[in-house]
């Protein structure tokens, strides 16, 4: 059985087998926010493949509530950037039908807490269609969901339901943490032959970064691989999406205490790149995994358990989890006390050293 450890399913043309050297010659760097990087990725895919179309609530003239689809309807027309009726199951369910006829629908769910009316179509239909038909029917639907807290919003606008989808066989779940990844992971996600859910870290939409938009700016990295975003030798922090910048800040703070912390950005939550995590924890012997979603039943538990199975004898301490409490996401005035932050992550790092 062949597997896809390195090659993205439906790779963007020019994907090299391994990471290409980053030289000035082939690069085209642009400074973009995450939101603009995704917008650019959507535009580039709409331009590259006439079967790509966007569907969602308010994504047309308004450009989406976060303006991620700004300008796309004007450029590609109302048949390719479709303002749908206000119904999430309808958006996902009709995307499945469109995909059965050769389209690559990219659905936008307006907020994380509003994916649930579409949950039935995602889990009982989208995730299972390929297996149900023994691969005869591919349904390359991409679902973009802004997720996570920290934006001071009201209920249902700050959730992190990624574990529910990662738990569902047949879906690929990815989440970028920076503008460059947002651009390339969005493009690679759309080109995947499998259904892909892209969780977009909404509190980082305005985070700027350099994006290499040249033809092989992806440098051979698949959307379904983790990446070491900071090298270190003493402990590893594994994080994704909105918490990657927090993990990096924690690593920087720890460096002042003379600790060398490696940070891994998981990027893909299904499949999880366990090989990359294993390599890191076997180097450092310690790991803290952090996410905004509740710790209980979260992906951190799966990661800790799997690495214990694979790397038990390399561990200097138990793998610790820093996640949300097992609560409904709190009201905005107390969300700060809920969200994993630099101190909570550093405390956990300390505990792995004290063990």
């Amino acid at each position: 059985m062949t597997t896809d450890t390195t090659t993205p399913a439906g790779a963007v043309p020019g994907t090299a087998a391994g990471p290409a050297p980053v030289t000035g010659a082939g690069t085209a760097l642009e400074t973009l926010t995450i939101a603009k990087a995704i917008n650019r990725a959507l535009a580039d895919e709409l331009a590259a493949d006439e079967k790509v179309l966007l569907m969602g609530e308010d994504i047309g003239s308004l450009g989406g509530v976060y303006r991620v689809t700004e300008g796309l309807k004007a450029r590609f027309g109302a048949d390719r950037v479709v303002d749908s009726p206000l119904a999430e199951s309808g958006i996902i369910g009709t995307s499945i039908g469109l995909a059965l006829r050769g389209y690559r629908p990219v659905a936008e769910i307006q907020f994380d807490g509003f994916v649930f009316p579409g949950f039935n179509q995602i889990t009982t239909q989208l995730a299972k269609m390929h297996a149900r038909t023994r691969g005869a029917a591919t349904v390359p639907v991409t679902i973009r969901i802004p997720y996570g807290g920290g934006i001071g919003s009201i209920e249902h606008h700050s959730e992190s339901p990624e574990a529910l989808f990662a738990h569902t066989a047949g879906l690929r779940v990815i989440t970028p943490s920076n503008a460059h990844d947002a651009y390339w992971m969005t493009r690679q996600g759309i080109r995947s032959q499998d259904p892909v859910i892209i969780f977009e870290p909404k509190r980082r939409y305005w985070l700027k970064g350099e994006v290499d938009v040249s033809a092989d700016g992806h440098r051979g990295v698949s959307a379904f691989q983790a990446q070491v975003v900071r090298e270190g030798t003493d402990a590893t922090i594994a994080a994704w999406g909105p918490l990657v910048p927090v993990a990096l800040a924690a690593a920087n703070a720890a460096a002042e205490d003379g600790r060398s912390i490696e940070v891994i950005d998981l990027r893909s939550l299904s499949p999880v790149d366990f090989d990359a995590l294993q390599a890191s924890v076997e180097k450092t012997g310690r790991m803290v995994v952090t996410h905004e979603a509740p710790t209980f039943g979260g992906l951190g538990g799966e990661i800790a358990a799997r690495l214990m199975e694979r790397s038990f004898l390399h561990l200097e301490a138990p793998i610790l989890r820093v996640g949300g409490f097992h609560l409904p996401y709190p009201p905005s005035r107390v969300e700060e006390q809920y969200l994993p932050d630099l101190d909570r992550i550093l405390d956990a790092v300390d505990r792995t050293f004290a063990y």
Partner: protein
Amino acid sequence: MSDDVRTDIAEAARSFGITPEDYMLPARHLIRIVDQDGTVLSTEEQGAEPGHDYPVPADEDLLEAYRRLVAGRRINDQNSALVRQGRMAVYPSSHGQEACQVAAAACLGEGDWLFPTYRDTVAVISRGVDPVEAMTIFRGDWHGGFDPRQHKVGIQSTPLTTQLLHAVGVAHAARLRGEDTVVVAMCGDGATSEGDFHEALNFAAVFHLPVIFFVQNNQYAISVPLARQTVAPSLAHKAVGYGMAGERVDGNDLVALLAVLERGVRLVRGGAGPLLVEAHTYRIQAHTNADDATRYREDAEVQEWLAKDPVKRMRTYLTDRGLLTEELQSRYEQEAEDIASALREGMNRESTPDPQDLFAHVYSVPTPQLAEQSAMLAEELSREEAS
């Protein structure tokens, strides 16, 4: 977008010389052409009204549909027998509803699509799917037995009404591709209470898509009667709420079903927007072999509906019209018998689903995790074999 819809509804209404409202609202009475004794009703008794009158289909269409009807009944009863013999896990029979099954498939052209429910096996087979392949899901070999794209038939759906949205998506694709595809999307009376029923009808109407929603109102959702699903004047009346046309038809009258659906397909293909057709019928057998229908309905009611049997009715009608000869009848019966024996043969043949197949199709390329798990299972199985 909604302006276009109104224009087209208005155009369809104008072509019949009636108001858009009268076009969208179902006729005052059920459309029925042949009564339960097999005699043709007078025009007044057919429930026809201006804009809601339906010409009797061509003789050869009627005979061809009857041929499939005879096969459909045989398929249902053969499958129920196979379940009793333990050759299949479950079979939701459409015994009593075969006229609906046949009409749903017969009204479609080559490029058209059908989205069936678990109960619509006869429609699936009538559309050309191999009977044994169609039974794969009920036998428990796999969750789908054929390629939906090859047959333009969705895999029979269990989560109620999910398939209606897939149908609407396929119709949306047809519109974008400039194809004149028509999609028939099937569901039951109980399923009309589900949210996806609403979303599907609304999407189809708003995007003005070529879909016929075909509801078999067999009076029950397992044990729950229609009165617990809706207090609307009829299910067909729901259409007007979406800005589409609705019609009610006798679901045991194959002639009326073909007449209504054939006109429907023509209108929908011509751009008149989606349509909702409610067929009144009855599930003669229990919901499935696992159900006990005596707990929620009286035998007298079943008897009443047995008298309205769609097969007997059509046979009398065609015989009286001189279209169906003894010779044709026995040929159709023989063909039905051949399908039944193919089913018996296929279902009695031992099959050994390979558990490794489970890992092969979850993703287009198996993930490292699945590769690992498939190796784990292979190892476990080889140990079992060795011991």
